[in-house]
């Protein structure tokens, strides 16, 4: 069988997951070997070639979107930079009194360019991702108004990862405009930053200042990076193959099949989905970080043990960190620092005090962030509801902060008390699970229905072996998920305390290291949910 026909038969779907055998046993080893034998000054180009090869294998001719996006931000960046240079040159020649007016002209020009760039990139994403949703809703509205006009619902082919690389492109161009970074005149460096293969499917959404130089100045593979990278990928496999894939059957039964499960079963389904989503996404991130580490690249972490969060606000600082940071830097800050908002804040501060005063402008910005966050995850009302749900929770959290502090003080409750913190963590967990229930449900109506049944008919009386058998799962599935979660919890607690297990392990003797590695590998092989009767889930965040 020719390898080319195996890879290029238009069915290369295996490569959409960093845990596929095609990736782990063929693509990645080929990259490692190719990278090692490539002369040092050509390594960067090898990585670029591998990245484009990877993207072409998963998206075929849709790679054109990535190419166009890269060319576009490259030239927009240079354009903005040239305006800046021209401005500096002209301003230095002008007398002081004329500088302000001249500068305003240049700034106006720069603003026009950045607006055009952002509108082009975000606009393309909006058209590809949201026009079917928009048209469907317009049609609904027209029919409700009794009009017989019906718009054709468009359907577009979208490359995997477009939401991720578009945000990365916008962050680059805005950072150039803000003067945080200089425009890159080397299109290959920019192309590598935009396309680095491990991150192209599910992120993290990197900033140019974080990874571009690292990627361009790559070094030969080091033994420590190679072993640490492989260990991280294995840890991700444990999360994805043992937990996320094993929960698929149960989660699908609760959310996708029409049934009349009682509230307790729905609640377990919602918890299982939350665990599945976290294990799938954070496991994929482990594979991304691990792969990058093999090549000596340090990527920004996308998760920081989110289920240890005490508030929803903290949760979102620990979950999908790069997306949250993007919204903070490119939506929240621009909104709050707008002139009108600043005015609003200063007048509100006088009337409402230092806590509630800034909260008004902050809440308006927060609303924008969460509206966009909901929409980014998908073009459906359930996702908008998901965004609004978190907006309201964070808003309530902000509003209640002073009275809660006052009550704690009165009752002599120390917020650092273990039990208090544990209760906060549990409360946050419950709120997250409710949000994920709506996120996973097939539409807002289905979500409401599930939630209502969960609350009004909360009982576990039918959750038994018979029910599990009807879903083709059994108690052993839950036992192994539980044991594996305990392992991951232990690792997370150690990480939270600042202990790096891989570093500690590297100091031990080879026998212990190998025994632990073999144990991890065999654990994944034996308890992994793969083969007959299982279907691995596609990377969940790749669809967003």
């Amino acid at each position: 069988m020719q390898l080319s026909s195996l890879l290029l038969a238009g069915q290369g779907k295996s490569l959409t997951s960093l845990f596929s055998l095609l990736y782990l046993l063929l693509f990645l080893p080929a990259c490692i070997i190719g990278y090692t034998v490539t002369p040092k000054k050509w390594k960067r180009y090898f990585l670029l070639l591998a990245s484009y090869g990877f993207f072409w294998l998963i998206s075929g001719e849709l790679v054109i979107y990535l190419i166009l996006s890269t060319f576009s931000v490259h030239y927009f960046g240079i354009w903005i930079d040239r305006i800046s240079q021209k401005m500096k040159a002209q301003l230095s020649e002008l007398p002081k009194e004329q500088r302000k007016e001249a500068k305003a002209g240049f700034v106006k020009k720069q603003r026009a360019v950045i607006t055009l760039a952002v509108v082009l990139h975000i606009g393309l994403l909006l058209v590809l991702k949201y026009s079917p949703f928009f048209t469907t809703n317009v049609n609904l509205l027209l029919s409700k108004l009794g009009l017989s006009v019906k718009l054709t619902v468009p359907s577009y082919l979208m490359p995997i990862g477009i939401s991720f690389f578009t945000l990365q492109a916008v962050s680059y161009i805005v950072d150039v405009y803000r003067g945080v970074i200089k425009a890159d005149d080397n299109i290959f460096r920019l192309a590598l930053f935009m396309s680095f293969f491990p991150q192209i499917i599910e992120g993290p959404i990197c900033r140019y200042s974080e990874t571009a130089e690292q990627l361009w100045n790559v070094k030969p593979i080091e033994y420590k990076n190679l072993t640490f990278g492989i260990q991280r990928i294995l840890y991700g496999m444990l999360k994805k193959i043992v937990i996320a894939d094993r929960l698929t059957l149960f989660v699908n039964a609760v959310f996708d099949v029409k049934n009349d499960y009682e509230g307790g079963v729905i609640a377990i389904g919602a918890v299982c989905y939350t665990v599945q989503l976290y294990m799938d996404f954070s496991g994929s991130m482990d594979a991304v970080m691990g792969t990058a580490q093999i090549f000596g690249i340090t990527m920004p972490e996308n998760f920081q043990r989110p289920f240890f969060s005490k508030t929803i606000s903290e949760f979102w600082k620990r979950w999908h960190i790069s997306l949250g940071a993007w919204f903070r830097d490119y939506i929240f800050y621009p909104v709050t620092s707008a002139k009108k908002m600043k005015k609003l804040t200063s007048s509100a501060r006088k009337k409402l005090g230092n806590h509630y005063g800034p909260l008004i402008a902050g809440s308006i910005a927060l609303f924008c962030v969460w509206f966009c966050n909901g929409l980014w995850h998908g073009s459906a009302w359930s996702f908008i509801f998901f965004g609004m749900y978190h907006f309201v929770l964070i808003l309530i959290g902000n509003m209640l902060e002073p009275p809660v502090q006052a009550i704690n003080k009165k009752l002599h409750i120390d917020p650092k008390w273990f039990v208090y913190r544990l209760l906060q963590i549990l409360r946050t967990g419950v709120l997250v699970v409710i949000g994920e229930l709506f996120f996973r449900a097939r539409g807002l109506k289905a979500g409401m229905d599930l939630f209502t049944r969960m609350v009004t008919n909360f009982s576990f009386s039918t959750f038994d072996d018979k029910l599990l058998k009807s879903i083709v799962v059994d108690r052993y599935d839950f036992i192994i998920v539980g044991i594996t979660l305990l392992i991951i919890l232990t690792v997370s607690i150690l990480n939270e305390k600042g202990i790096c297990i891989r570093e500690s392990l590297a100091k031990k003797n080879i026998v212990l290291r190998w025994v632990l590695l073999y144990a991890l590998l065999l654990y994944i092989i034996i308890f992994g949910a793969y083969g007959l009767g299982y279907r691995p889930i596609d990377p969940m965040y790749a669809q967003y």
Partner: protein
Amino acid sequence: MPTVLKNIFRGVIFVLGLALMLFLLSKVFIPAEGTLDDGVNTLNSNGIYGEDKNSIDAIFLGDSIVYAGVSPLQIWNEYGIPTYCCSTSAQKLWYSEDMLRKAFVNQSPKLVMMETDALFSKFNFDDSLMHKAEGVFPVLQYHDRWKVFAENTFGDRSEVTSTNEYKGYKFSLVIKPSTNLTYMKQKLSVETLPSRNKSYLKEIKEYCEEHGAKLVLFSCPTTKHWNKARHDSITKLSKELDIDYIDINTLPEVKMDWSKDTRDYGDHLNHYGAIKVTEYLGKYLNSLGMFTDRRSEPAYEGWNKTGKNYARKTADAMKKAE
């Protein structure tokens, strides 16, 4: 020793150690008994491994459409040709190829009849690679047996070899009619075969030729999976690869009654439909002049017994159903 070489050596030793462990674990995980609870999901088709050496003259490859629509014992009872259905649910071509190779270990069939639905079934690289790995380390296939681990796991083990009483055929009298009676008249755009599947078909053909077997493609009646576009595609392909092709969907002499002959709305045939299809296939096999009637051979006494048993059981069940 330079550090790089030392590290490579370490890596090789680590991988060899893992391979050894997988080999040993495979000994433990291969089921002693061929029951579904033991993690064996392909029991009917695997029955061919338990047949006497060189006793099967023709095999039928393909997905569930084959085991629902072709009854080897009907062919035996009518023509004395020993055949077997090597078909599994949603069989992909990598599995067909593997099944074929495994069948040829103990058998030397002169004819391989391959159903065409699987030719359109898409699969990815991971599936075929995993299947190859499962062949080397069966623990990868039977790993889920940790759930049913009990006594007697270290005994003498080998792949499942028990025979199947209907020779791979799955008997069903359920009737759920199909209303799609014009499925062969709809002219859809030509459906091209995935190139990976075409490569596998070429390999299967070469393998058959190397082992002195004739490969024939056939399409079993199904209103759900078959259509004119697929028929045209396979007709063209069979000419290109010089393989004989029979599309039973287009044969007027096989009078399918879609109100009675399917068990799931035209997806699979039931026993009523299988009788008609098998009747035609039996005639076709006999007309090839490649086979002799083995019913009087002493080595096939067992087949005569199972054939009679099959005839009695199915007739009784049909009577009861009426």
